[in-house]
């Protein structure tokens, strides 16, 4: 039994761990304590406590990573006007291009990170998995003919386009949200 515990990391038990929450989220790294609550200062002692919690495997050296929700008013000292400009830019930083995905008839929307995929087949497969549907193959002439579903996206001009027509990179930079159309409306998109 002891050796079992010792090799815990090698068996990668985390991957098969049962827990609530969507796959892909990882709660454990966010549990480090924040020594600064809103507008109150922590004494140096409590700072040292949280360092021992963080442990030694923190590659980035950020021992004081605050919990995800804690945010101090007016910190860091970046102008609020600039803050409003910066948030939409998140898409351009290294952190992923998250777009909403809606499917006709589904009770709630989902979000995916387009940067995770390198080409259309990967994206389509992910959508099929997410919504438990079959979209099929794209053809320039027929669209997604034969499928009950058609993946569409809203581009920067606000128009609804069929997924697959433009090169992948152009799609990534112009896609604002995705919508999986269903039924006769979808079939209509396949025609010229």
């Amino acid at each position: 039994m002891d050796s079992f515990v010792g090799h815990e990391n090698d068996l990668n038990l985390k991957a098969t761990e049962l827990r609530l929450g969507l796959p892909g989220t990882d709660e454990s790294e966010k549990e480090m304590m924040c020594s600064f609550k809103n507008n109150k200062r922590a004494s140096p002692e409590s700072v040292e406590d949280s360092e021992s919690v963080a442990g030694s495997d923190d590659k980035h050296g950020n021992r004081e990573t605050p919990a995800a929700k804690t945010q101090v008013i007016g910190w860091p000292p970046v102008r609020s006007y600039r803050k409003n400009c910066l948030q939409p830019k998140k898409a351009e930083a290294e952190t992923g291009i998250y777009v909403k995905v809606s499917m006709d008839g589904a009770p709630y929307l989902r979000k995916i990170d387009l940067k995770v995929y390198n080409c259309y087949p990967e994206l389509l497969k992910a959508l099929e998995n997410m919504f438990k549907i079959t979209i099929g193959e794209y053809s320039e002439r027929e669209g997604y003919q034969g499928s009950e579903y058609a993946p569409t996206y809203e581009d920067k001009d606000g128009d609804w386009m069929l997924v697959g027509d433009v090169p992948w990179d152009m799609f990534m930079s112009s896609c604002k949200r995705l919508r999986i159309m269903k039924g006769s409306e979808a079939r209509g998109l396949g025609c010229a």
Partner: protein
Amino acid sequence: MDSISKKTKDSPNSTDSPESTHPSSFPDEVLEGVLSLLSFNKDRSSVSLVCKDWYNAERWTRTKVFIGNCYSVSPEIVARRFPKIRSIILKGKPRFSDFNLVPENWGADIQSWLVVFARVYPFLEELRLKRMTVSDESLEFLAASFPGFKALSLSSCDGFSTDGLKAIATHCKNLIELDIQDNGMDDFGGGWLSCFPENFASLEVLNFASLNSEVNFDALERLVTRCKSLKVLRVNKGITLEQLQRLLMRAPQLMELGTGSFQQDLTPRQCAELESAFSNCKNLHTVSGLWEANSLNLPILYPACASLVFLNLIDATLQSGELAKLLAHCPNLRRLWVQDTVEDKGLEAVGSCCPLLEELRVFPADPFDPDILHGVTESGFVAVSRGCRRLRYVLYFCRQMTNAAVATIVQNCPDFTHFRLCIINPGQPDHLTNEPMDEAFGAVVKTCTKLQRLSVSGLLTDLTFEYIGKYAKNLETLSVAFAGSSDRGMQCVLGGCSKLRKLEIRDCPFGNAALLSGLEKYESMRSLWMSACNVTMNGCRLLAREMPWLNVEVMKDEESDDSHADKVYVYRSVAGPRRDAPPFVMTL
């Protein structure tokens, strides 16, 4: 000159009238003629202290006034002393209002000033406002009251909209400068630009980069065409590259350019035309804007890069490779502003390409996202310091820093006058040694003897402030957040920094003892701000009682207990307590 020195010996504070016992062989007109050549207000202040004659001559010849705190003086007092003002710079709210620490409707309204100015300075030409509240009605009043009005600059102001700009554009027939920087304003559309009359041609400076709505391009092009003296043009991101090319062809004399969007897909011919347009701008020394610039389009700039002195990439979100390629063409750069998306690798390029660099500002692309681990580190800063030995101004946002790195940096660059380091996570120690960052800032103040402005961050004990008090003898502005261990820290600063003018503190364990240790000091300072510290109402009341020439103002947070003074703002004033204070500002 003998008669002058005789005057200073005999009557420095004389109450005799000038004509009485000391006939001067130096008539007033000559004195005024000489003094009118003085441009620096610091010199003028010295001059005005010599004797009454000089005080009077100086006040009659002063044309520019700078008021760093609008509540330190009243418009009536200014008007009484200086009858001939043409240019005014006014600053209002405390600087921490930029970071939402000051509630709305705090004050600093320009209207009461304008009313007095309209009466006393009908020939007013320039108004530069920072952190003031400016309504559209005030802008309309301004446009109507000063027929010779030439220059308006609004930075970090709030309360107005594009409607106010319409009034300026329509009525200010002699306008030379319209400079709208980051403001809390309402944007109701770009129609204001079309309000410049068709025969209006005097503009030299136009900056509307921070406005989002599109302007009418034809109107802009016609305006640029007829304003032959236009030197500074900063457009907003609604202007495309194609449109930019046309503007540049109309204004090759430009010295400072803020481009619009840099994202358009260009044909080879369009690229060539843009490159040609940039190479035609022989006087271009400053470029900003560059929204969404990518590696395909940046090369358009290259023909203009050799003479660039200031490159502001704060809106461009470049990666390291893109920055490196661009900077390879900019050997004469003195000032560079970037986002931390360029990472350490980008900063290495700065160090190797820009040996003349004097100012570097690195802003965080995602300041409020705690999951972000990218950005710049201590290595980037060190790399810059190795290549750019003339650095004197740095603003650096990072997620990790070490004491050793900062020591190396200031050894490489001992001439810092402005050192603003922001380690984004509050109270974070040296990430290698886990120690406080005291030695880092100790190194800064010991080495950089010319230091005027310092912002500290990271885990800091009182030792940091002992160092500051002991060594930072030229320090004028100090910003402190989440730092210090006890009152002693603040006491060291107040006791040691003889030239201190502005002290802003938040979330530090400094209490009444610290506050009261600066009793006499505050009269020689512009202001003190303390928020979320350990100061109580009683401490503030005591300060107010002891120092009648100081305004001691307290704002309380909603959930705080009665005795705690949550936000304290102390400043010297000859105007007495504010008469326009809102209910949430308590004057003690």
